[in-house]
């Protein structure tokens, strides 16, 4: 059986992230970095799916993360809903908001989508601290405290024993990465790459950009919302602070370092970038400057990211491969969404008159 390099990378990453803590014993710092790294890896990869593959420049990711976190936080603290259902609800809620935003947004051009979604992020951040937000239980600027941890069977995870948290995050990570991998290497993913590389050509052979973009927008939002919900239970509290620019900046750096549309570059980049962030704490107020400079330098000198520059990644349908990729994109496998323009099949084509 042929295993794709991307799948192999995910498996290696999962195994390493699972084994490293054993080597370090119960080191809290290492555990926390890995858990946070896994969370960022999922959010970053979901972002890359929509930005790098579907070619939709969106900034809504942190809002989706926040929506997932707040949904489960409100449900579990106010209504006593189980955290497991909360994660599900968080994902569904984020997905629903994603579709709601995607419906008007995805027909627009790149910069419009970027700012509209950026606006959604700013609006959500303003909403949770506003009186409207307080009315539905966001707790205003104080946030929500005392979000219960997960329990498995009768065992309740506690905030001090990080091991179970890490392996739970690893589970979320593995499932999410597999879903993203599946999407990228499916009929849909091929259609995205075709659309990204040549939108007109792809549309001319019947790939409907709007429907695919909406679908991937929803998938990306659901994954981000779910991991956001996990994060809420992991830290035990949510507040407007998590919607600040900090997380956005980190994701941005991971994205650029990993390379746009080069799965799973962002996931791999997540860990070193987080470590760097920890060590840069000494730089204090200069930290954003350092990260800003890193973003600029990476974009200027390594526009395809580290992984892409090293020759890895799945940039996919270039030159000759593109035509074949397009054929694969329009050949509709059973159960795949119908494309807008039907291909004329040979038997319906009118016979030429003699």
């Amino acid at each position, binding site marked *: 059986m042929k295993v794709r390099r991307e799948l192999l990378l995910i498996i290696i990453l999962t195994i390493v992230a699972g084994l490293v803590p054993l080597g370090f014993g119960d080191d809290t710092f290492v555990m926390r970095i890995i858990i946070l790294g896994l969370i960022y890896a999922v959010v970053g990869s979901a972002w890359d799916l929509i*930005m790098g593959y579907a*070619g939709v*420049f969106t900034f809504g990711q942190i809002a989706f993360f926040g929506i997932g976190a707040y949904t489960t936080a409100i449900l579990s603290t106010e209504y006593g809903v189980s955290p497991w259902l909360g994660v599900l609800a968080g994902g569904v809620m984020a997905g629903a908001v994603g579709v709601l935003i995607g419906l*008007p*947004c995805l*027909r*627009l*051009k*790149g*910069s*419009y989508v*970027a*700012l*509209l979604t*950026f*606006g*959604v992020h*700013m*609006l959500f951040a*303003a*909403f949770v601290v*506003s009186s409207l937000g307080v009315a539905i239980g966001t707790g205003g600027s104080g946030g929500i405290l005392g979000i219960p941890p997960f329990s498995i069977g009768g065992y309740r995870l506690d905030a001090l024993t990080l091991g179970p948290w890490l392996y739970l995050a690893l589970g979320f990570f593995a499932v999410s990465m597999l879903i993203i991998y599946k999407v990228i290497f499916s009929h849909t993913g091929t259609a995205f790459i075709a659309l990204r590389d040549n939108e007109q050509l792809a549309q001319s052979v019947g790939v409907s950009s709007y429907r695919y973009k909406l679908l991937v927008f929803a998938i990306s939002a659901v994954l981000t919302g779910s991991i956001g919900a996990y994060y809420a239970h992991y830290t035990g509290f949510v507040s407007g602070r998590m919607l600040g620019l900090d997380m956005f*900046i980190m994701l*941005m750096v991971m*994205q*650029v370092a990993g390379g*746009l549309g080069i799965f799973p570059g962002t996931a791999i980049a997540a860990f070193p970038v987080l470590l760097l962030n920890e060590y840069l704490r000494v730089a204090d*107020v*200069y*930290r*954003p*400057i350092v*990260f*800003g*400079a*890193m*973003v*600029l330098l990476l*974009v*200027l000198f390594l*526009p395809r990211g580290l992984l892409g520059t090293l020759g890895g990644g799945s940039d996919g349908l270039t030159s000759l491969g593109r035509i074949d990729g397009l054929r694969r994109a329009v050949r509709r496998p059973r159960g795949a969404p119908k494309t807008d323009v039907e291909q004329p099949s040979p038997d319906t084509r009118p016979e030429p008159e003699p």
Partner: protein
Amino acid sequence: MREFTSVLISGLSNASVYALLAMGLALVYGVSKVFNFAYGSFFSLAGYLAWVLFSIGLGYPAVIPLVVIMLFVLGAGADRLFIRPLRPQKEWETLVVIATLGMALILDGVDLAVFGPFLRELPPLVGGTTTVGGFVISNLDVAIFCAAAATIGALLLFLSKTKMGLAIRAVAQDIDGAQVVGIKHNTVFTYTFAIAAALAAVAGILLASRYFVSYKAGWDILLKAWVITAVGGMGSLMGAAIAAVGLALLEAVVAWKIGASLTTFVWFGLLIVLFIFRPQGIMGRWG
């Protein structure tokens, strides 16, 4: 009624500054399809630079031109160093957005590191009030309106009378055609980016004279300028002006009747509704 008039007048004075800002965005987008995420950071940097110049004893007549020149040079340098090299790339629009975000991080970070998280205040442009026919009008409102209107006038004059202005319009209309007649589009791109930065400088000083200078204020301003540009139609200066007046008046009325914190929600609600029915904006066209 009296209250309504003063709301209207301060709304109009804000509208003039918003129009200025939105025109800068519309100009750059119309000419080079670049969306500058550092625009708001230029705006707040201008406020800080003005604050520094005031603190060494200069007055408005010296501060405004100096800051405008500084921002013009900064804008030109940013385009030359960080945006021009990205243009030949395949996905340059995405890369440019990321690069300008990086620039915004650096500029805001510098503001924070140098000036700290405190709000800074500029001396008032003019003080006092004038009573016209029973209505009390703040002189500051009038002064801001006049300064912004004069800047817009100068911009329109520049675009219609000077060689570079005409070249900018030519590139906006047809980049290939402009190249055929010998217009260097890279120079035009750099000029428009620099002019937009200079407009942000004027707006930054004018609004800082009314409100405060803060390293975070730029993001709010960027969003406002963008909503205006999008409502007016990306790339349309006339649309930007109309949208600025409409949205600033809406903002003034919402802030007066409902509360200032809700204006952003109202603006975005309006924008989303507009996008569903007329995605190209009031005056815009696709392309």
